[in-house]
């Protein structure tokens, strides 16, 4: 990411933010203060989000889009207002925002809608896939943006292809040529392992040149910097509430209006129908068509509050703050003998997920030492197993940042890594 005009958070702003997150003041493992560096997996939630959800449940809870009594009116209002604010947060229209249970469901929604277009009497030419067609992903995808496409290919006979990753952890744009048979290009907006931000504009340009649909996995970008899907000219995008200070159990699928309007449904049932007869049914316009059953109501309200919280801080400032933390972490880790960082080691086109190995200490062992010091990191392949295999590793340690992390926590991480080296006698 190129340097942003905004200033990082000041110490007192940071202190005020941290006070909003109850969990940050707890201790772990024999009374050590919690150093939470696992926001890439799930973020923590401020009081404001918890309060919004609770106020909704205690005052306005009803099934949305179903009732006509006062509570139902109020619940509808709260739910749709959340949708509108979340849509604005990522630069799109409310009708283009579909609530899902998580980002994973959003990607599955698109992949199943495509295969639903490919079977039965009424093929939807625009979306139907068949043998010979290609679906393109990248080698740095999270399993959530890989396995659903493998399964789509299995269902339709299409072929999966992928952009490779360079030794430096960048996408190798020369590793693959799209073709007229390329129907979908799905890629991450920011690697959850290496932080790499790929050249979205170029990827979109190439995809649209051959008439392919573009699907952006924005799980790791939307929580951390300003994102505008309309400006990115992307067709579909997904992100998760729980990674951006919101509740678990809610995610978002963005779909360009004209695509959502013609896309067939995925999950079917109540509230997504137009007309139901035993013999067959027709479906409601978007976004309802994609929200079958009673939705994650209070969770959408909570995510609305999360977006308000982030907007109040300002996403430019969130990004500037996290970039500063990431830069220090990268510099500090680079100086420690035996540490190998996966992917870009400077802040250019890169976000705040830093994965690394320490000598030949297994990630689980390293993570355990850090945990013992109160430092919560992830030790795993981070649901990007093919990427780890590409670098010849089974697992790495990942530190990932959010707006509530402090420079002192980065120092604690660096000291912890030294302790790992000492404990497991990693040679200098």
């Amino acid at each position, binding site marked *: 990411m190129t340097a942003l005009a905004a200033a990082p958070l000041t110490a007192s702003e940071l202190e005020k933010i941290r006070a909003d997150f109850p969990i940050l003041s707890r201790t772990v493992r024999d009374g050590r203060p919690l150093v939470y560096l696992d926001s890439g997996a799930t973020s923590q939630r401020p009081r404001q989000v918890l309060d919004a959800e609770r106020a909704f449940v205690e005052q306005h809870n009803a099934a949305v*889009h*179903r*009732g*006509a009594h006062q509570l*139902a*009116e109020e619940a*509808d*209002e709260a739910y749709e207002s959340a949708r509108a604010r979340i849509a604005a947060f990522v630069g799109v229209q409310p009708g283009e925002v579909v609530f899902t249970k998580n980002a994973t469901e959003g990607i599955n929604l698109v992949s199943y809608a495509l295969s639903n277009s490919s079977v039965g009497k009424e093929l939807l030419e625009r979306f139907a896939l068949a043998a010979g067609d290609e679906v393109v992903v990248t080698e740095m995808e999270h399993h959530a943006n890989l396995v659903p496409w493998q399964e789509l290919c299995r269902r339709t006979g299409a072929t999966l292809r992928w952009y490779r990753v360079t030794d430096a952890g960048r996408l190798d744009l020369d590793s693959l040529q799209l073709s007229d048979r390329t129907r979908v290009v799905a890629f991450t907006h920011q690697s959850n392992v290496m932080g790499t931000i790929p050249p979205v504009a170029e990827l979109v340009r190439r995809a649209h040149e051959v008439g392919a649909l573009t699907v952006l996995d924005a799980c790791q970008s939307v929580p951390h910097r300003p994102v505008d899907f309309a400006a990115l000219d992307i067709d579909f995008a997904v992100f998760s509430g729980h990674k951006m200070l919101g509740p678990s159990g809610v995610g978002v699928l963005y779909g360009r209006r004209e695509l959502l309007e013609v896309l067939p449904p995925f999950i079917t049932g109540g509230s997504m*129908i*137009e*007309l139901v007869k035993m013999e067959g049914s027709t479906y*409601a316009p978007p976004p309802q068509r994609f929200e079958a059953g009673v939705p994650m109501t209070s969770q959408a309200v909570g995510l609305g509050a999360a977006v308000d919280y982030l907007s109040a801080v300002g996403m430019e400032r969130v990004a500037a703050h996290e970039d500063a933390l990431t830069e220090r972490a990268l510099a500090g880790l680079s100086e420690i003998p035996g540490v190998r960082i996966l992917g870009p080691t400077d802040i250019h086109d890169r976000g705040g997920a830093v994965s690394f190995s320490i000598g030949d200490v297994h990630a689980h062992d390293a993570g355990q030492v850090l945990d013992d010091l109160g430092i919560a990191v992830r030790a795993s392949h981070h649901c990007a197993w093919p990427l780890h295999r590409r670098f010849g590793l089974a697992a790495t340690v990942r530190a990932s940042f959010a707006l509530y992390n402090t420079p002192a926590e980065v120092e604690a991480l660096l000291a912890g890594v030294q302790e790992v080296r000492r404990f497991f006698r990693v040679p200098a």
Partner: protein
Amino acid sequence: MKLEQLYQEIILDHYRNPHRQGLREPFDAESYQINPTCGDEVTLRVALDGDRVADVSYDAIGCSISQAATSVLTDLVVGRTLDESRSTMNAYMEMVQSRGQVEPDEDVLQDAVAFAGVSRYPARVKCALLGWMAFKDAVGRAAEQGNGAHQAEAR
């Protein structure tokens, strides 16, 4: 009690004695609309005489609000030009979707001002709009056909 503000006598009158009910021939375009939450439906036909709405006829299942709204609609548009009808329609739609914020213009909306109360009940707004959506759709279709005919002539 707010109930009387919603169910004004005019509405109940139209509901009990709907104007221009039934489907009639000839017509220029027809529209079928449903409200999926309650199963209400309306089939509505528009007959044009040049630029003027000659007749609106309809068959509908629905609540008092939707029935009355469709009845009032026919009073407001039959005999008017398409342009006049559209501006009435826009004024009406604006009013019922305004959450009580828009003061209706009685000169334009006449009996339809009775539906101002509906705007305070978001779940009922769809009821008040069902017939109007059908009218809008039918007029649109008629216009398309007209254009089609026009283009065909032009060739």
